[in-house]
């Protein structure tokens, strides 16, 4: 990847790091976990620097007593982005008590729809979703239902953590989570936020969630992903959304696809997650941080 594409993105991330060490969704805004995690991954090669370490310490400070991470310093709630914190720990080979507590929290969390009470309600529904409610995925926040994106991120984190965590529950939840994703697949071969139909009418897939679902399914030996990867390629070719293209590039490159490079002339935007994702999506970039250890592209 020519320096002309990657360097401005890394420079923008360095320039827009907040004084507390984190990153906001946009320059000058409060630090949140999600952009901070992606920025730290994009700048992983500088992990020894004081600036990187300051961001890392801030992110670590947002872990709650129950093991979950909260989305920022002002919202004291357990949050799906715990998965990103665990992925970042794995990228840095840090498997300490905080890491273990985070993994335990993810293993104890699942979509509310899989609880017995809600499954009984679902049996009464005259317009059922068709979802197998035994297949536990992960919600955006506790006590909500499971969706593709948080499930995919959590699968990535758990698969990366698997070498360090000897726990049969982890293997069981990976199988169930993969099953949940496969059960929500749209008829066009991809995924949207997590509903393949509404009121009996099929819904289309989205580029970014298709990319994430594929990342979550990496390493699954039981599943033939050929059609899904083909759909992801189509979406990558057709999409003009830079957010979608970045996630699709990360995902497709994780599966070994060779993609043309994005034009050098495209400047970074003021969206700091997009800036980090575009840096991670470069051919020699950080797609490997989303790949489970031991899984070849």
């Amino acid at each position, binding site marked *: 990847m020519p320096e002309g594409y990657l360097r401005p993105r890394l420079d923008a991330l360095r320039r827009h790091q907040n004084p507390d060490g984190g990153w906001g969704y946009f320059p000058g*805004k409060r630090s949140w976990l999600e952009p901070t995690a992606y920025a730290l991954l994009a700048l992983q090669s500088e992990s020894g620097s004081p600036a990187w370490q300051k961001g890392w310490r801030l992110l670590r400070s947002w872990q709650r007593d129950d093991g979950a991470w909260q*989305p920022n310093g*002002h919202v004291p709630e357990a949050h799906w982005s715990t998965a990103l914190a665990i992925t970042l720990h794995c990228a840095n080979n840090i498997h300490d008590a905080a890491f273990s507590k985070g993994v335990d929290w993810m293993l104890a969390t699942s979509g509310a729809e899989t609880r017995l009470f809600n499954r009984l309600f679902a049996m009464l529904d005259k*317009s059922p979703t068709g979802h197998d409610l035994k297949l536990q995925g992960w*919600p*955006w926040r506790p006590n909500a239902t499971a969706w593709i994106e948080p499930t995919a991120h959590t699968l990535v984190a758990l698969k990366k953590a698997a070498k360090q965590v000897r726990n049969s529950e982890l293997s069981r939840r990976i199988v169930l989570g993969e099953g949940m994703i496969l059960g929500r697949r749209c008829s066009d071969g991809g995924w949207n*936020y997590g509903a393949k139909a509404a009121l009996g009418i099929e819904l289309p897939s989205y580029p970014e969630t298709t990319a994430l679902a594929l990342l979550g399914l990496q390493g699954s030996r039981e599943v033939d992903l050929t059609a899904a990867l083909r759909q992801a390629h189509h979406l990558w070719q057709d999409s003009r959304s830079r957010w*979608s293209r970045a996630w699709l590039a990360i995902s497709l490159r994780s599966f070994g696809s060779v993609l043309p490079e994005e034009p050098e002339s495209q400047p970074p935007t003021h969206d700091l997650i997009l800036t980090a994702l575009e840096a991670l999506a470069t051919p020699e970039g950080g797609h490997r941080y989303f790949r489970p250890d031991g899984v070849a592209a």
Partner: protein
Amino acid sequence: MKPCITRRALLPAAAAALASCQKSPEPIPFAGTSPVAVLKAKNYQEDLVTHILTGIRLCGLQVKDKRVVLKPNLVEFDAATSINTDVALVAAALHAFRSLGAASVTIAEGPGHRRDTFGLADEAGYWKGVKDFEDNFVDLNRDDVSPIKNFAGQAQFFFPNTVLAADLIVSMPKMKTHHWAGATLSMKNFFGLVPGAIYGWPKNTLHQIGIPESIVALNRQFRRTFAIVDGIVGMEGNGPIQGTPKKAGVLVFGKDLVAVDATCCRIMGIDPAKIEYLNMAVDLGATNPAQIQQRGENAAAVRTNFQLFPDSTLRLA
């Protein structure tokens, strides 16, 4: 044969049964009157700025020195149908509110399904249709937030600072049918005020609270409001996303969002009394035609029946 009951119907009913154990007093119905203006507009090439200025004047809205947030309905993009508030109307509103001396005018939205708000806005033509769009827009899904206590039974709920700081939130929905709520208009448009960065995509917490309950709670929370409903081309059938375009040729304005939505329902040929969220909002505004001061066109004269989703329990009035 499956039992003929939906989970969406059963969960609120169960919640209501539990709530009845400690029943709060019945809300006192709104007793005042509310002006609602209906203006004809054949297409988006008309002078929409003048239409908006007329609607604002007919409703007696004061804009000067206010921090205004324009909240369009930006959901998903499909070139084959009309899901989103047309950019021409949003651009005209930006111009109109600025011309009236607003302290600031910001376009803000937090789509419920798509994470890439700026990409969605691009597909919907907002980047081309609004000058310096990026400088005038806030992604409410990823804005900084502050807590509100006791929202819809939640001890603490977070909202974007942009909307909490606004003196006036202008709801700019598309006039659409909705396969669950019956219609999606200015009140339901406030779902986009809830930050996805905390509550996710979709904002599942609102579905758990209940769709009508959430609509009413959001409108109880945000009271400094005005509505400009894009009914030039709306959506009928399987709204809010998979329906078909429906020309109604109107713009509907008002400070009382309950009265605006009730009027829109009448224009769409839907009995407002059959819309659950309007029934739950009797203390917030006027649904009774006797309490709605109709200005501009007569709503009955511009009525254009919208086809409802076949499974809907609603019938045309």
